[in-house]
């Protein structure tokens, strides 16, 4: 009796999702490379990340244009409308992830080739957890999996705790290593950037829950 309709609209939504995944992939790669640049003191790689951020910015712009066009021309309602809202909102979160990769790369440049005040172990560990959260939030977005989104958000508190401990520890090095103050401050900034990666991942996870349920959840609580 009834026919399935709106195949063009559905196709456009699929294309939009592909763009979002491509953007998330770019941001994840940028973050991983920024960390590698910091750890290996690879200034060439750091500069490449700084210069490459416009790719992520352009993708965000493209996603926003497409989402707004679909809202204007397709009159979406209910989950379709939430999907487009989430496309706008989540792409801004991912764009911030790209900015954070740039910030970490800039810290790597500021530190330059100066010998690290200590071997960097905890910062990469913290980054590993934050990157897990990025992966989980993006996967939960792709598969529209609320449980995975919640699992992702649950890690935010651990990252926050690591951030607090690490910054405290880093600051204790300043009195004994005053010549390394700039480096220590940059490393504290990096910790702060990683903590923000976890926050943005949580926000993406919250968007997934909103997309699926139509209700707003603060997964940080």
């Amino acid at each position: 009796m009834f026919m399935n309709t709106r195949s063009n609209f559905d196709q456009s939504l699929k294309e939009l999702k592909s763009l979002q995944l491509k953007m998330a992939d770019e941001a994840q790669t940028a973050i991983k490379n920024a960390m590698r640049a910091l750890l290996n003191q690879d200034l060439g790689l750091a500069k490449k990340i700084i210069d490459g951020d416009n790719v992520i910015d352009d993708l965000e712009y493209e996603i926003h244009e497409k989402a707004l066009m679909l809202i204007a021309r397709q009159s979406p309602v209910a989950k379709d409308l939430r999907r487009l809202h989430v496309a706008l909102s989540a792409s801004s979160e991912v764009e911030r992830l790209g900015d954070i990769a740039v910030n970490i790369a800039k810290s790597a440049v500021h530190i330059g080739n100066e010998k690290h005040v200590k071997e960097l172990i905890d910062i990469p560990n913290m980054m590993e957890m934050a990157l897990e959260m990025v992966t989980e939030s993006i996967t939960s977005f792709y598969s529209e999996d609320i449980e995975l989104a919640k699992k992702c958000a649950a890690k935010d508190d651990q990252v926050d705790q690591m951030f607090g401990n690490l910054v405290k520890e880093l600051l204790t090095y300043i009195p004994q290593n005053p010549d390394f103050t700039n480096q220590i401050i940059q490393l504290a900034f990096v910790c702060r950037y990683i903590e923000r990666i976890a926050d943005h991942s949580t926000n993406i996870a919250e968007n997934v829950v909103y997309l699926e349920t139509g209700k707003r959840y603060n997964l940080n609580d």
Partner: protein
Amino acid sequence: MTAVKEKRTVDVPVPSDGEFQSENILTVKNLEIYYGEKRAVNGISMDIEKNSVTALIGPSGCGKSTFLRSINRMNDLIPGARAAGEILYEDLNILSENINVTALRKEIGMVFQKPNPFPKSIYDNITHALKFAGIRKKSMLDEMVEESLRKAALWDEVKDRLDRSALSLSGGQQQRLCIARTIAMKPTVILLDEPSSALDPISNAKVEDLIVDLKKDYSIVIVTHNMQQASRISDKTAFFLSGDLVEYDKTEKIFTNPSVTKTEEYISGRFG
């Protein structure tokens, strides 16, 4: 139209001060409507709120227009049509055999999809039924014409040409004239069956604005195929499918997060 002159056998109560105690103007209980052997409405129950716009949506053949027409007994005109259950209007079952249908239709007026003004002057379109109802005094008729046309947001456009043929008006103006004609009978409920589907976008927008404005004084039930129209102007929306009332909720809920998958599929254009 002679029926309008008939004495009412059962008084349909008219609120003396315009206020009802209940927030609901109509209560539908287990309503079934048949065309011969075929059941078009499968035992629906719902309340229709006073001074609000209730939209009935659903694919063609879902029973929404059949339901709308049953509210002022328009289905009586269809051979073989019959209804079971109750539609309570001020505790009176509209479906009862002893209801004076003509009197009922004065209080529950209807406006149709295609503007259908009488081939008479604008003035006479409004006064035609009023005269049959026994109102003869010119000053009173003048007053009611102006009041109705003002309420229908048409007065300013036609006040200088009330003697011109209603057929000289644009489609949108004709539809507002039909609404004015309904308002003149001082109804409490106005039923609208796709009232702006035959209109251009500007006329449609005027009719939509008018509907929202009219809910101050009337309770409105509208059948529409236009999802955006339902979402723009209604307070509550009822989704019908194959004779069933699938979901009935606040319009903002229906169009943002409906509870039933079929509703979501329909409003988002996935079937229908």
